């Protein structure tokens, strides 16, 4: 630094003081020499002290200059604009970036007025903020737009000796990129939310879940501090809070009610229009139901409509002023539409579920009554068969009894005895088989469906009815198509149909006759089973009536008229058809058609 300058100054100072002293001394001759010596010494001492202080000061100044240089380096190194102004806005100091940003040189900038060097729009808003800092003495941070760039400013007051704000340090940062990134992020969040909500609530089937999911997604995605979903109860003139999400969810009791017209939610409910208050202090309809607890500064209420009908309101609240931009409103409105669709779907689903449950109940009842009908019909056919079965059992019993008698009468005839024993055994087995068939028929049937060989089923039915047929002098023959394709079904049920039709044929031939049964493949991948009798036949006008329940031509006590109607429903149950061809006194042919379960090779 300029060392010589300081030395010269110090010398000049000392000489001046001594000269002044000498002048004073010459004016005042009354002082003694000793006095003079003492004063001189004192003076010299003072001068020395002054010189020491001056040296101290010089050292301090040097340090100050060094620190000033450090600070300058520091503020120039700052990537943001830093400057110092006085209360009038005169720039006292600034870093080079500040000058560069304003397209000024640093020398020009120092001493200029800040409000003259920035664009007039920014100048006005900044002046307001800076004057507020000067008034309050509190630091302040604000954002504004300057020449198309977003600027974040921090104004720090520096107090003067009198405690008033004397100067202000200002740091400004260009946050345009950050702002853009934030806006983009928000837009992405909005679109993602729409997508998520659409996807999630369209999959939700219960009404409660739709509203709950929607409320939570909105709240979570945007961080609004309160989101609530209301549904409209028009009869009671209220909106009922069905879901809520956010910090204040627990403040509201379940099914919290807001009257139509009350607050922004109530107005949207009444008029079906979106209401936006970006600053609730200026919104006359805003009502805070918990003013001490919910610090809402902005609120948006959106109607939820299904078609033209208003069904609810979506309420979104934020603690930020200006929380909702155009896009937010659009997103929340779109969301309300999606919620409406989901609500409609859920309502439809619920209606369908209820209908389904009802139908299931009806079906169960129907199945039960069908099962009862089936059992009644079976018992009725058992009644008809009882005579045949009694005869059927008494024959082997008669043989057993007669052979037992012969055994007792012929203790020594070994050959005869052997024959007797064989005949007893055979008859016992026959009786047992009759009982077994009867039990199989009487037992409630399983409805297990599998591939059924119709010939086996028919043979079973004929075996069971052989004696009934014999009793009634019905001669029967069968005409089976070899390798008949099998059908899908329940053998017990099909056997009951066959038994019903055979008994029916017997009934049509009270004086005996011929029954022919047979099978063949038919067109449309079907099989036909036919039963032809030589009985009394069926008048044409009865050919449909005979399949109605409780239709019977028999006198009371002889059959209850269920056989054919039960057969009809059993065949329907097997996706088949049953029809009758007949002429009075020419007999009748019943034809059953069933779909093949196997490819028809024939």
């Amino acid at each position: 630094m300029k060392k010589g300058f300081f030395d010269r100054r110090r010398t000049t100072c000392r000489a001046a003081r001594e000269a002044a002293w000498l002048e004073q001394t010459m004016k005042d001759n009354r002082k003694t020499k000793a006095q003079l010596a003492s004063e001189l010494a004192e003076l010299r001492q003072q001068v020395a002290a002054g010189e020491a202080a001056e040296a101290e000061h010089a050292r301090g100044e040097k340090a100050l200059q060094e620190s000033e240089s450090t600070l300058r380096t520091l503020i120039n190194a700052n990537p943001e604009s830093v400057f110092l102004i006085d209360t009038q806005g005169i720039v006292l100091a600034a870093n080079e970036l500040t000058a560069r940003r304003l397209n000024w040189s640093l020398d020009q900038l120092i001493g200029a007025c800040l409000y003259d060097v920035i664009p007039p729009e920014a100048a006005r808003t900044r002046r307001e903020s800076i004057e507020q800092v000067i008034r309050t003495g509190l630091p302040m941070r604000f954002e504004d737009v300057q020449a198309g760039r977003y600027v974040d400013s921090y104004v720090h007051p520096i107090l003067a000796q009198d405690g008033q704000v004397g100067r202000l340090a200002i740091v400004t940062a260009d946050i345009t990129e950050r702002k853009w990134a934030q806006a983009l992020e928000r837009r992405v969040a909005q679109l993602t939310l729409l997508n998520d909500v659409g996807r999630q609530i369209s999959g939700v089937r219960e009404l409660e879940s739709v509203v709950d999911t929607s409320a939570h997604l909105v709240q979570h995605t945007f961080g609004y501090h309160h989101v609530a979903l209301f549904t409209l109860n028009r009869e009671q003139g209220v909106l009922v809070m069905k879901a809520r999400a956010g910090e204040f969810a627990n403040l509201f009791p379940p099914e919290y009610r807001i009257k139509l017209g009350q607050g922004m939610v109530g107005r949207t409910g009444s008029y079906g229009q979106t209401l936006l208050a970006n600053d609730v202090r200026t919104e006359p309809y805003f009502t805070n139901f918990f003013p001490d607890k919910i610090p809402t500064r902005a609120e948006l209420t959106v109607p939820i409509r299904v078609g033209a009908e208003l069904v609810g309101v979506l309420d979104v609240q934020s603690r930020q002023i200006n929380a909702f931009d155009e896009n937010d409103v659009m997103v929340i409105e779109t969301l309300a539409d999606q919620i409406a669709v989901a609500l409609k779907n859920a309502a439809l689903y619920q209606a369908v579920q209820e209908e389904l449950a009802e139908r299931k109940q009806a079906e169960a009842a129907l199945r039960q009554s069908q099962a009862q009908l089936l059992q009644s019909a079976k018992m009725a056919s058992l009644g008809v068969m009882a005579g045949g079965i009694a005869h059927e059992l008494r024959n082997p019993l008669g043989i057993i009894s007669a052979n037992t008698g012969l055994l007792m009468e012929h203790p020594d005839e070994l050959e005869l005895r052997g024959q007797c024993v064989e005949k007893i055994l055979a008859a016992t087995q026959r009786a047992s088989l009759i009982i077994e068939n009867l039990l199989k028929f009487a037992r409630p049937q399983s409805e297990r469906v599998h591939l059924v060989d119709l010939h086996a089923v028919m043979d079973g039915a004929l075996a069971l009815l052989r004696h009934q047929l014999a009793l009634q002098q019905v001669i029967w023959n069968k005409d089976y198509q070899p390798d008949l394709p099998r059908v899908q079904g329940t053998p017990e049920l099909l056997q009951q149909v066959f038994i019903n039709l055979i008994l029916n044929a017997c009934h049509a031939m009270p004086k005996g006759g011929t029954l022919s049964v047979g099978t063949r493949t038919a067109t449309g991948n079907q099989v036909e089973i036919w039963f032809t009798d030589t009985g009394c036949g069926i008048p044409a006008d009865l050919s449909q009536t005979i399949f109605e329940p409780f239709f019977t031509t028999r006198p009371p006590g002889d059959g209850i008229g269920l056989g054919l109607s039960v057969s009809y429903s059993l065949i329907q149950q097997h996706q088949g058809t049953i029809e009758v061809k007949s002429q009075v006194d020419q007999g009748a042919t019943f034809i059953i058609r069933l779909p093949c379960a196997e490819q028809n090779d024939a």
Partner: protein
Amino acid sequence: MPEKLAGILVVDDEPDMCWALENILRPSGFVVTSTTQGTKALELLTNNVYKLVFVDAKLPDLDGLELAAFIRKCSPQTAIVLISGYFYQEDPAIADGLANHLFYGFIAKPFNLDKVRSLARQAMAQAF
């Protein structure tokens, strides 16, 4: 006189029942013919004279009661005994048949062997 005791026809659709009746009656000296078919019985009855016919009430091809009526008509001197597992003694059809002398006796299955033989003996004694 064995020939006088001859001439019993058994008509029952059960071959084992025919066999049993044959073995019950033959040791007592009766000559027994049997058939399981109603039509065959008609044929036999046309060509032979039987003192006694045991008829099963239910035959696959003919009604036993009708067969009995036929026998009564074309061979009034033949005694008929109805054997059945289907009817019982008090059945109107049986009671009527007995009252009208359509048949001589009725045997319900299962039956007592001695009853069959004594009924056979009585019927034979009464016939002719």
